[in-house]
């Protein structure tokens, strides 16, 4: 489903050069859930953002469902329809109601009729347990509720892959569970997912593979059972000691 070959992303400023993603290659199969962990600044977000072209990379290849996203003939907007993304800070559209947040892209991008888009939106809002807030504005919702709306918004495009960038990091602790539950359900339904998170419990329970990133490189790529018990890399060991 996702194939990444020798991906390199460099941020260059007047007085700094950061190799945010440094020669990363990996594959994510259909229906696979991959959790990416690593210290802050290790390039997890940048890696994820390269997968849907939010970040233009310097070298390497990202192939989504057979399409090279940096190809000269590739319509990036068409690729992004198939790749949903959930952000740390939700990024709901504050001037639209919850329902409109979920229907807007369906109407604009997928060209669905209002009735069809509404029906789909209500079904998804029901699925994430927030249908009764359909006509509220996002600012009236708690963080956990907003993040669930954001998940519904991404799912409304019928994506083939879902990317999550620390979806629970901005939440109060008591709201983390409700968002993780939605993600676990998605995983059970066979959604292909790449998840950056610090929730080790989620990684252990749901992930098929864990990638450990540090300084732009993937240092470990292992099933959670092995990663959490016997990591090879000293830096992964040090990281786990800190977070567990």
């Amino acid at each position, binding site marked *: 489903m996702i194939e990444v070959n020798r991906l390199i992303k460099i941020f260059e400023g007047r007085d700094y050069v950061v190799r945010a993603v440094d020669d990363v290659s990996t594959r994510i199969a259909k229906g696979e859930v991959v959790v990416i962990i690593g210290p802050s600044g290790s390039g997890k977000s940048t890696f994820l953002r390269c997968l*849907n072209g*939010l970040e233009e990379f310097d070298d390497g290849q990202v192939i989504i469902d057979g399409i090279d996203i940096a190809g000269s003939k590739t319509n990036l907007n068409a690729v992004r329809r198939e*790749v949903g993304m959930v952000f740390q800070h939700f*990024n709901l*559209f*504050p*001037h639209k109601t919850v329902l409109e947040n979920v229907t807007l*892209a369906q109407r604009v991008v997928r060209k669905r009729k209002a009735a069809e888009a509404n029906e789909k939106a209500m079904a998804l809002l029901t699925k994430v347990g927030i249908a009764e807030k359909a006509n509220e504005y996002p600012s009236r919702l708690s963080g956990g509720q907003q993040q669930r709306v954001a998940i519904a918004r991404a799912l409304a495009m019928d994506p083939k892959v879902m990317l999550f960038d620390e979806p629970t990091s901005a939440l109060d602790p008591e709201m983390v569970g409700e968002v993780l539950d939605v993600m676990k359900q998605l995983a059970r339904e066979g959604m292909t997912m790449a998840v950056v998170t610090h929730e080790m419990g989620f990684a252990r329970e749901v992930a098929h593979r864990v990638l450990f990133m540090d300084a732009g490189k993937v240092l470990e790529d292992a099933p959670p059972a092995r990663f959490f018990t016997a990591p090879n890399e000293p830096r992964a060991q040090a990281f786990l000691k800190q977070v567990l």
Partner: protein
Amino acid sequence: MAFKRQSAQWPWQGLLVVILLGLAIGLWIATKQVHYEWRWARVPQYFAYQEEEPQTAPFAGTVIKISPAGDASQVTIQPESGVQPVTVTVKTATLKVADGAQVSEDDEIGVLRGDWRIGPLTQGLWVTIWISFVSGLIGMIIGLITGLCRISKNLTLRGLAVLYIELIRGTPLLVQIFIFYFFIGTVLHLDRIVAGIGALSLFVGAYTAEIIRAGIQSIPKGQSEAARSLGMSAAETMIHIVLPQAFKRVLPPLAGQFISLIKDSSLVSVIAITDLTKSGREIITSSFATFEIWFTVALLYLVVTSVLSQLLFWLERRFARSD
């Protein structure tokens, strides 16, 4: 326990009244000093007036009867060589003949008030309002386009936008109006009104562009990233996500810009467009009520701008709904 101290307000209110009163007295003394005679009664006629039609005797004869009818009088004239007397109606206040007087042909008997006419102040106010409105509208469109060019990735568009904005913001509006009228207007054979509106539109456009650019850039990047991640194009993201939010934020400065425009539009009077300011100047040459007319003109600008402020205040509150 913390509580809000209730400080007495009345000494300050009293002070305010005293200061205002002092200003008024100062003004009064100042006008006394220059021996200015106030003629406020002359002002209303410049808003609207009744046309005056002088009435004359149709032939030589004698006034044989004057009978009042309301505030008018009916004057009956008996011709010298004739048969039937004729009745002429004039305003009593303007009556120029007495009963039994001799009149010759075309002598003025008095004045009859005709239809109501719109005075020059009203006309000037109307010109100011519609010129500002049209220029404002065109200026906002120019500003939106320029603002978008200003943040475009294309270097040519960005360069042109910067050049235009810097040119307009770095030169006085008065000079721009002259250049537009005498140079561009002559080359393109523009009507003075078109030249005036053109100059004002370009002026507002440059300032609006900066406001709109700032508004767009004030919307967090996460908003457009979320939209793009859903597959929306750059244009769709702009139209559905960024501009609606930016517009809400720039409404107050945009409104301020428009209110400024109404005042700035007084400068087009230099190319002989009869707006409110020009009307005021014209009236003064015939009425000699210099102070009264300028005060009235100032008041009219003030009324228009405050009505607009109120309107936009109300609009802002409507838009604040989703916050």
